């Protein structure tokens, strides 16, 4: 089966929360079906806003966002393009059990009750958290909650999974284990995945391609392919070398090199 080269197609995207201050400016991006891409940018550059726009919760001022050839829908109840979203914090409903948290989004996606049960079991098992099926989220550790959040995103079998720095609040050891599991899960599922991060090493470890953003408002500064075979090791010298190259490459753009025209001298 052929895979669409422009599964996610973003052209001339402009987003602003208040209508005055731009958060995303004239951004173009194409992501192939089944690809794992990272969006890399400094803190506050507009990475999360870009994901909000792709998910349809923020309306762009102008530009095109299409997934699988369909414009991204907005509004409650709209099911045109199912999207899985893993937030920086888990965003589980504390008053619903793990299974109920997943069931709610599956029901909203129009999945039958019988199928819901099967999917909950399958994805909890996939993320090694089956034993917590009937547990309240407040009883889980940060890593377990984020696993549930990932299970929720994957269980709707979305067209695209968006991840917004999902491991940034976890301790480093847990984050490494989670990254490894995510890489394996992606290889198994083959879903299109857009992963936002400010960590160059994380982007290099996980993604096939990295969209490097400007320091804000966000537009694409460069696109880097990661020619490292999988499975990857986090300490791989090849990744270290690529990391050094990217750091050098973005230094000026992210404001750590020579001052740019118009920058504040103070």
């Amino acid at each position: 089966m052929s895979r669409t080269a422009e599964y996610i197609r973003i052209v001339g995207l402009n987003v602003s929360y208040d209508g005055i201050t731009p958060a995303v400016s004239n951004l173009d991006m194409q992501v192939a079906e089944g690809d794992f891409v990272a969006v890399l940018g400094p803190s506050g550059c507009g990475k999360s806003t870009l994901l909000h726009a792709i998910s349809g919760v923020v309306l762009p001022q102008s530009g095109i966002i299409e997934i699988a050839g369909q414009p991204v829908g907005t509004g409650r109840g709209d099911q045109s393009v199912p999207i899985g979203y893993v937030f920086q914090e888990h965003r589980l409903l504390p008053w619903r059990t793990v299974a109920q948290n997943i069931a709610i989004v599956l029901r909203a996606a129009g999945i039958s009750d019988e199928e819901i049960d099967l999917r909950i079991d399958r994805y909890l098992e996939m993320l090694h958290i089956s034993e917590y099926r009937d547990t309240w989220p407040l009883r889980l550790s940060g890593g377990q909650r984020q696993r549930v959040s990932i299970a929720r995103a994957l269980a709707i079998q979305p067209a695209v999974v968006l991840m917004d720095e999902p491991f940034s609040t976890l301790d480093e050891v847990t984050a490494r284990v989670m990254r490894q599991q995510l890489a394996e899960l992606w290889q198994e599922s083959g879903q299109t995945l857009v992963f936002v991060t400010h960590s160059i090493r994380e982007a290099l470890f996980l993604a096939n391609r990295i969209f490097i953003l400007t320091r804000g408002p966000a537009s694409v500064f460069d696109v880097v392919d990661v020619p490292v075979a999988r499975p990857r090791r986090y300490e791989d010298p090849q990744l270290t070398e690529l990391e050094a190259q990217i750091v050098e490459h973005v230094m000026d753009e992210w404001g750590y090199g020579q001052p740019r025209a118009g920058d504040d001298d103070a």
Partner: protein
Amino acid sequence: MSVPILLWWIGSHTTTFVPPMGEVLRKMPEFLSEEDIWPDVLLTVQRVAGSLMIALSLGFGAAYVMHKGGLWGRVVDRYVGLMLGIPSTIAALLSLYIFKRSELGVYFVVSIVTFPFVALTLLQGLRAADRRLDEMGDVYRLPTSQHARHISAPHLVPYTFAAIRNEYAHAWKVVVLAELFAVNSGMGARFARAFDRFRIDDAMLWLIIFMIILLATEYLLLLPSERRALRWRGSGKEALL
């Protein structure tokens, strides 16, 4: 509980009009076996529950409008502020003038006195809503009904319990007061009748019934319901559902 008992004990030993505790309690079985007290007890309970439901509905509506803001939000906000300052006695007299000795008057006075407090408590809940959970609901395209059921309503549960708990005791006081002024039935009216006839024993027995109902509602109804509704917060025991 120990403070009223202590006060009673002191009162009965230092005055001649407060009867000793033992004497009153000895009359309790006989008092409870009188058939004509129960219709009045039930009538008062019904008035408290009914008017509290009305106050909750009005309070939720007012809180929602105030939270939305705009012209109506400001109007309701001023109205709620005004109602907060009206003493229960004035409200009871007002209801007597408007509704005469009608049953509606009792419901009116209790609802009008208690709903502003309910509105303020629920408004706090609406203002404390977690926008991040709303955003999660929007990302996963939860329909409005599911959004309300799974995100908004559960968030308001602790605030609703706080409002019920505060206003339940308040509603009892106002109902008894309204029964004194506006109608000639219910526990308030029976209490006033006993007092008018200098039957202090009966007045104390009605007072005990009043306290028993309040405590029973708190410990047998409100607390267990609250514990069940908020069990996700608690000791971390696994879900019952």
